């Protein structure tokens, strides 16, 4: 009867509304009014304090840089729904986007943003630089990559591989962009396998010059950011051939353009063309035709060639020498991991704010439609991801600290942690952005709403500076080495957070209660258990292949599945640990209470991973208990959703129209008539 009544009503409405005079009634319907979430949601904790905890450092510096961007016409401000949004005009041609990226860099340069980035020293400088990259990355991936190539790769190579005369000659000019650097490592035929590159450098003792050559098409340098248009100089990686001996991969400086931007003799440059994202970066290809550079251009901190052509190196082992060359890539990896966290923050802020204002379907006839975020299913889609990004924020902050406090002894830890975090966080970023895109429905497809577009912009993160799959395999190999070392020398595990391996294996209760599931000790036990079991299994699998006479390399290749599961188990546990440590620094209060729930949601979300059931670490019953608890936590965190995304500290201008008054932003009056 109700149904029939409603249908009649709808039909009546249709008929009545067909006269123009009546259409005005439409706007008075509650559902069509945008109601700002700020006025209906309360913050149960201090959002500013939470932001300080999340960003971790340099909050004021970040805000200044946000302000510099918002206040300049160069950053393409547009008013939508009464608010200003900044984001590049992705509708511009590739050439225009590249020029805009460069103009923005010039603007920031003039404002002293890069002051001290190359010439300054110390942890504070490095942390501040990370903070600036996080902010710039929130504007656009292209600008952060373009700067990253110049400062972290080109500049970093000079800092790390060069010696004093290189520092004196290049660092200041790099900081103020007298030279524009790029980094020629990858070739058409070799990406992750840097040791296989084919570019060759020989030495001519008669002139005291190195001669760089691209011997074949697969040796052309490929994807070189900055090479297609702007860069004047590059670091070139090549096989150094001295007196017929291949001494392995070394790095030198070569000029590729003059100050007026003309390509130098014996250099050929071509464009990599339009890409699915990052079109504000001019990726290019370079061929070297017997390019001559002075002997001093060899970056000689690891190895040198004497004027008369003798090869000299303080590191005799070629493996170690090669490892030393790859160290600047670590900074890039740290940057990528951290940047990915911030992209997810953008996606989640937008999707959750939208879900707090967009309604769909009524539960009963004549009732207002339900807010998207009040649907348990919508909570279940977004809130575990929100918890994940909280955890990854703490992980990223830990990674940055680890990097800036680096010592020769911590190199291995940095390599393992940065590799695993980079892979885990960039993969999860793609997953989060996809979920957020879908959660915004069709609005997620509009470039101006950012979420969908960010996927294309950041897809590259899963493969550059180390393919994620390969990085995860490297992590497992490193853990394997730890295991063998401990076993062989009958020593305890020390470092990489593996100390739990020295303790008895944790036991998971057969009946998991809500209290247990929310206990951080249980959560830690469950994550350690998986890591431990997978490491044992990985060692066993590899050993079995070795016993059958397979080579070590082949044994690793055959055990790829466990290797990747182990890499994931390692990083989930390590990230969880950073969460627990951050939580422990807080005084009890509402902030800590909310974070406790977020931590539980993150941990239980990890426990829902397929590996727990695949390897039987959790019973089916316990798996169900975990799932049920996640649903409960989502309900409990729902009232904090706005507070949790507001704590990301991303200014409104860096989100998008659907995160705010999307009705007004799409109103007829906002259309350019």
């Amino acid at each position, binding site marked *: 009867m109700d149904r029939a009544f409603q249908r009649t009503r709808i039909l009546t409405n249709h008929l009545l509304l067909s006269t123009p005079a009546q259409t005005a009634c439409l706007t008075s319907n509650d559902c069509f009014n945008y109601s*700002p979430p700020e*006025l209906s949601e309360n913050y149960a904790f201090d959002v500013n304090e939470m932001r300080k905890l999340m960003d971790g450092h340099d909050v004021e510096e970040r805000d*200044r840089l946000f302000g510099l961007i*918002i*206040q300049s016409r160069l950053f393409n401000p547009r008013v939508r729904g*009464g608010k200003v949004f900044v984001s590049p005009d992705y509708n511009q041609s590739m050439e225009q986007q590249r020029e805009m990226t460069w103009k923005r860099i010039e603007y920031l340069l003039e404002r002293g943003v890069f002051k001290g980035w190359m010439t300054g020293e110390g942890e504070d400088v490095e942390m501040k630089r990370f903070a600036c990259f996080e902010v710039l990355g929130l504007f656009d991936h292209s600008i952060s990559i373009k700067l990253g190539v110049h400062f972290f790769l080109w500049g970093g190579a000079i800092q790390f591989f060069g010696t004093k005369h290189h520092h004196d000659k290049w660092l200041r000019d790099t900081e103020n962009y007298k030279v524009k650097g790029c980094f020629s490592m990858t070739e058409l035929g070799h990406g992750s396998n840097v040791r296989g590159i084919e570019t060759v450098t020989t030495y001519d003792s008669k002139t005291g010059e190195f001669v760089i050559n691209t011997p074949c098409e697969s040796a052309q340098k490929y994807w070189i950011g900055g090479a297609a248009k702007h860069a004047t100089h590059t670091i070139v990686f090549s096989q150094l051939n001295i007196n017929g001996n291949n001494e392995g991969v070394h790095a030198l400086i070569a000029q590729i353009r003059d100050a007026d931007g003309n390509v130098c003799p014996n250099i050929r440059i071509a464009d990599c063309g339009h890409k699915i994202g990052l079109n504000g970066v001019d990726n290019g290809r370079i061929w070297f035709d017997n390019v001559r550079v002075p002997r001093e251009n060899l970056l000689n901190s690891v190895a040198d060639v004497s004027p008369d052509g003798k090869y000299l190196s303080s590191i005799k082992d070629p493996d170690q020498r090669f490892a030393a060359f790859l160290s600047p890539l670590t900074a890039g990896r740290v940057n990528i991991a951290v940047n990915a966290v911030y992209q997810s923050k953008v996606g989640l802020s937008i999707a959750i704010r939208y879900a707090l204002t967009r309604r769909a379907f009524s539960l009963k006839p004549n009732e207002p439609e339900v807010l998207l975020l009040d649907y348990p299913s919508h909570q279940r889609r977004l809130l575990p991801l929100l918890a994940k990004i909280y955890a990854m924020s703490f992980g990223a902050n830990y990674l940055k600290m680890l990097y800036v406090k680096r010592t020769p002894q911590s190199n291995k830890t940095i390599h393992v942690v940065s590799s695993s975090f980079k892979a885990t966080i960039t993969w999860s970023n793609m997953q989060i952005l996809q979920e957020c895109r879908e959660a915004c429905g069709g609005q997620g497809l509009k470039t101006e709403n950012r979420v969908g577009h960010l996927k294309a912009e950041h897809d590259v993160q899963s493969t550059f500076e180390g393919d994620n799959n390969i990085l995860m395999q490297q992590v497992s190999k490193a853990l394997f080495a730890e295991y063998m070392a401990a076993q062989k020398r009958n020593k305890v595990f020390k470092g990489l957070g593996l100390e739990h391996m020295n303790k008895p294996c944790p036991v998971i209760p057969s009946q998991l209660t809500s209290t247990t599931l929310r206990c951080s000790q249980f959560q830690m036990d469950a994550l350690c258990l998986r890591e431990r079991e997978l490491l044992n299994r990985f060692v066993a699998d590899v050993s079995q292949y070795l016993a059958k006479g397979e080579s070590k390399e082949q044994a690793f290749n055959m055990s790829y599945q466990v290797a990747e599961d182990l890499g994931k188990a390692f990083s989930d546990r390590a990230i969880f640990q950073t969460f627990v440590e951050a939580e422990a620094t807080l005084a009890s209060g509402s902030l800590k209470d909310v974070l406790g729930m977020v931590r539980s949601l993150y941990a239980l979300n990890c426990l829902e991973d397929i590996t727990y059931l695949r390897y039987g670490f959790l019973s089916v019953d316990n798996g169900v208990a975990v799932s049920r608890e996640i649903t409960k936590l989502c309900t409990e965190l729902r009232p904090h959703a706005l507070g949790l995304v507001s704590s990301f500290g991303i200014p409104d201008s860096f989100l998008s129209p659907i995160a705010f008054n999307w009705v*007004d932003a799409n109103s007829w009056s906002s259309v350019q008539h």
Partner: protein
Amino acid sequence: MASSVSSQHDEVLVEEKSFARILTLNRPKQLNALSSQMISRLLELFLANEDDPNVKLVILKGKGRAFCAGGDVAAVVHDIRAGGWRAGANFFMKEFTLNYLMATYSKLQVSILNGIVMGGGNGASMHGRFRVATENSLFAMPETALGLFPDVGASYFLSRLPGFFGEYLCLTGARLDGAEMLACGLATHFVQSAKLPALEAALCAADSSDTVIISSIIGQYSEQPSLKEQSVYNRLDVIDRCFSQKTVEDILSALENEAVNRRDGWISTTIQTLKKASPTSLKISLRSIRAGRLQGVGPCLIREYRMVCHVMRGEFSKDFFEGCRAILLDKDKNPKWEPSKLELITDTTVDIYFSKVKNEDWEDLKLPARSKFNLPPYVIAKL
């Protein structure tokens, strides 16, 4: 059908004209400086008018040669001397609440800025939807010369001016005329004062609360004044270069670099003004406007209330009292700031002004609840 409902002696005069209410600040001898009573009265009137379905438009203006020269700071200092810093805090709590009410007002406010509009006067007008400047308008936020900082939500509305013009106005207290106010967006219209009576009559006859309609009515009396040749607004380039710098010290040295490159009276005046202002005020003002640029109007006022409480308490610097002495009371125009130099004020000290006041029963500013429905889009955008 006009009727007068207030007496000549009231500090706020009220006229009811069909769907409009004209509120006139009526303390001409004090240039309409806002007393505590006036603020209470305005709060009362604004709340009542918002609820009254017969009211569609509120016009706010001042009697005499000022719209409003600011909050009655001399009275605040007097109250603090008599009743402690909390007396001062209470004044600002009420004033900022009024500012928030105006910023989130569901009806249209038209402020007629026919004369001086400074400090608290800006707080009472800039948050409203329409600000009408005239050839008599004289704008300034002069707080840094007084040992205070631009409050009343200035960290919201100044930070949203083009480029770094807001930082310039905020730190130097520079004065603008009506044409400049229009150019930078502080005013929405410019009307010759001779046309004001006609404009008022037209607004009162309007019977509309539609932004577009009201804007076009004001537009009929408006003109596009040209900037005077020496206008500071023609120097946006230099202002952007210098006032976008990171710290007050950096801003000063950027200005000094500009001065080296060319002889320019304006640059040296600007440098002199900055050097005469309270160093503590400069530092907290810069931090405040930069934070405000990224915040909604509510959080801006909450932050400014924290700051003003710290200033009133004077635990780190008593510059506010010294400034009031030198400018308003003794009028020797020679304040002795303490700390006396920028370099004596560290970031950690500045942090204090942004933290909660550690005092029993002190609370952050509680903003009045606003209806989540029927707020116009231009209000929603400010939240």
